[in-house]
């Protein structure tokens, strides 16, 4: 997935041997949306969005935070949590080695970055998954960091924004423990909801599987970046099951909007204004005194 990373063709593919595609190395890159050859710096200045056609490229969690929140307002939380290898899982490579490689390659400790920040002076709790780290999949650490963030948002009575970029869904290398993170995070969201919280879920390319089937779908308000791939089962799995041609635009943000599962499609550039606006409409009530 995400062969269109701005860095190199294999930045987020999880497959180092794959040859680099297009001309992303160096100064220029090719837009998969309109085919234009773009000056990389121009794209980066534009929050990794094509200035010609508004194609939304991959953006790392950290870059997104930089663009989204008021400058220097981000206070990171729980970055000391580390994945371990509870199942001693080995496929073509051991999970232990994979984790080491992912950390080195992405300079992230895990597939999610959490903390408190401000947009236009309004405080909120942010959790952002990064599809470059193990396809943005959710294992024990992603689940735990989400739950702690949700519990913090509940305690501090702050709005919660989770931005999802996960093609991996639940992380297979942690087996059933990953599946249980779906339950754990959803339960925390239920408590937050009972306490009157405001949860804005932002779906970006890609949001699939166990992530889609848990927290990503549970927003009070659901926003999506244009043309993101969002769904439960992967298009190939569906094709293999039904053997029918999939409809045009199947499982895109626009498809979800048409079927009633997304409130608004939001350009990356507009997200901070839209969030500030939503926070103003949906103000959290002060804690009831007992």
């Amino acid at each position: 997935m995400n062969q269109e990373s701005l860095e190199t063709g294999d930045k987020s593919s999880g497959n180092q041997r794959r040859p680099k595609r297009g001309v992303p190395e160096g100064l220029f890159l090719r837009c998969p949306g309109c085919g234009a050859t773009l000056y990389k710096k121009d794209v980066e200045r534009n929050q990794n969005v094509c200035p010609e056609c508004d194609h939304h490229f991959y953006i790392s969690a950290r870059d997104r935070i930089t663009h989204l929140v008021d400058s220097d307002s981000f206070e990171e939380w729980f970055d000391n949590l580390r994945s371990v290898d509870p199942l001693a899982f080995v496929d073509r490579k051991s999970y232990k080695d994979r984790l080491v490689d992912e950390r080195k390659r992405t300079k992230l400790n895990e597939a999610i970055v959490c903390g408190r920040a401000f947009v236009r002076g309004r405080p909120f709790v942010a959790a952002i998954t990064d599809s470059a780290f193990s396809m943005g999949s959710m294992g024990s650490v992603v689940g735990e960091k989400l739950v702690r963030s949700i519990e913090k948002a509940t305690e501090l009575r702050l709005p919660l924004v989770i931005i999802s970029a996960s093609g991996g869904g639940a992380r297979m290398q942690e087996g059933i423990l990953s599946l249980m993170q779906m339950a754990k995070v959803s339960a925390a969201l239920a408590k937050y909801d009972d306490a009157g919280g405001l949860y804005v879920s932002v779906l970006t390319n890609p949001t699939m599987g166990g992530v889609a089937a848990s927290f990503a779908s549970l927003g009070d308000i659901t926003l999506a970046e244009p043309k993101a791939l969002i769904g439960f089962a992967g298009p190939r799995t569906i094709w293999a099951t039904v053997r029918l041609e999939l409809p045009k635009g199947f499982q895109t943000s626009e498809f979800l909007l048409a079927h009633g599962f997304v409130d608004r499609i939001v350009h990356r550039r507009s997200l901070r204004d839209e969030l500030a606006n939503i926070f103003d409409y949906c103000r959290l009530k002060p804690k009831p005194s007992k």
Partner: protein
Amino acid sequence: MAVSSSLYLPFEKPIYELEAQLSELEANSNGKGVTDEVRKMRRDLDNLVRKVYENLSAWQTVQVARHQARPQSSDYIELIFEEFFELHGDRAIGDDKAIVTGFAKLGDYRVLVVGHQKGKNTQERSERFFGCAHPEGYRKALEKMKLAEKYGLPVICMIDTPGAYPGIGAEQRGQSLMIANNLLEMSRLKTPIICTVIGEGCSGGALGIGIGDRVCMLQFAYYSVISPEGCSGILWKEGDSHKEEAAEAMKLTSKDLYRLGVIDDVVEEPLGGAHRDHRTAAWNLKSVWLRYLREISHLSGEELVDQRYSKFRRMGVFEEASAGGTT
């Protein structure tokens, strides 16, 4: 219970061979009562079955969990409950036959039963999509569970699915949202919930009716984040040719899940698996459910929800690094 020869699992071959020899011997000894030879062979057969089933690999366990003669929700409903009063429909889209729901009587308790149903013959299986529910199935389950909550009925969920249905219509009607919504709502349902994996417990499709105060598995059921075939295809990238290794690596047997703290109990199956003796399997299940009901049915809705939250809150394994290293 006689199992049709077309359903023999490869590793069961020696069992069925010895069984055939035994029945021949029994037929020949007609009128002479039970001879020593017959007695010895019966003992040998028991030992063989025990030996085979004590040492099942993860993949063989998956095969047993998928066995076509394995009891399904409908069998347990028939064998365990005194009455089943089926309720249909999700009040929005339709009636998904992959999940059955209804009131039932279990001993002195009136409960709501929710269960995946795969189907027993080709026609039933196609009507029920092999137990793969669509969004309306999860919605139907939740609607009925909310009904149970309103009238204080405990909920018993039987999980037996290869996964939620991966189809065009399922995506159009919000498969992700319906599953996610069940996880959220079941976590705060103010009535006792018992979940049992009776066969296959695969991915979000299983978890969608799997949030409970007590979660248990039948001995040869499996419960997994993805099917072994799916895991093989994604991580080994060669179709399902590594499904045996994937099954082993994901630690999906009842023993593994008990060790990982994900389930409360492993419910013992009769010698040689539930498919060989539906009645004993049902009996074992019934006694565990009755114990659970005695343990939790007196708790208040708030107590249940608090304890359920703590139960799932604890799940996961990780390290917390401090500035000086990991703790």
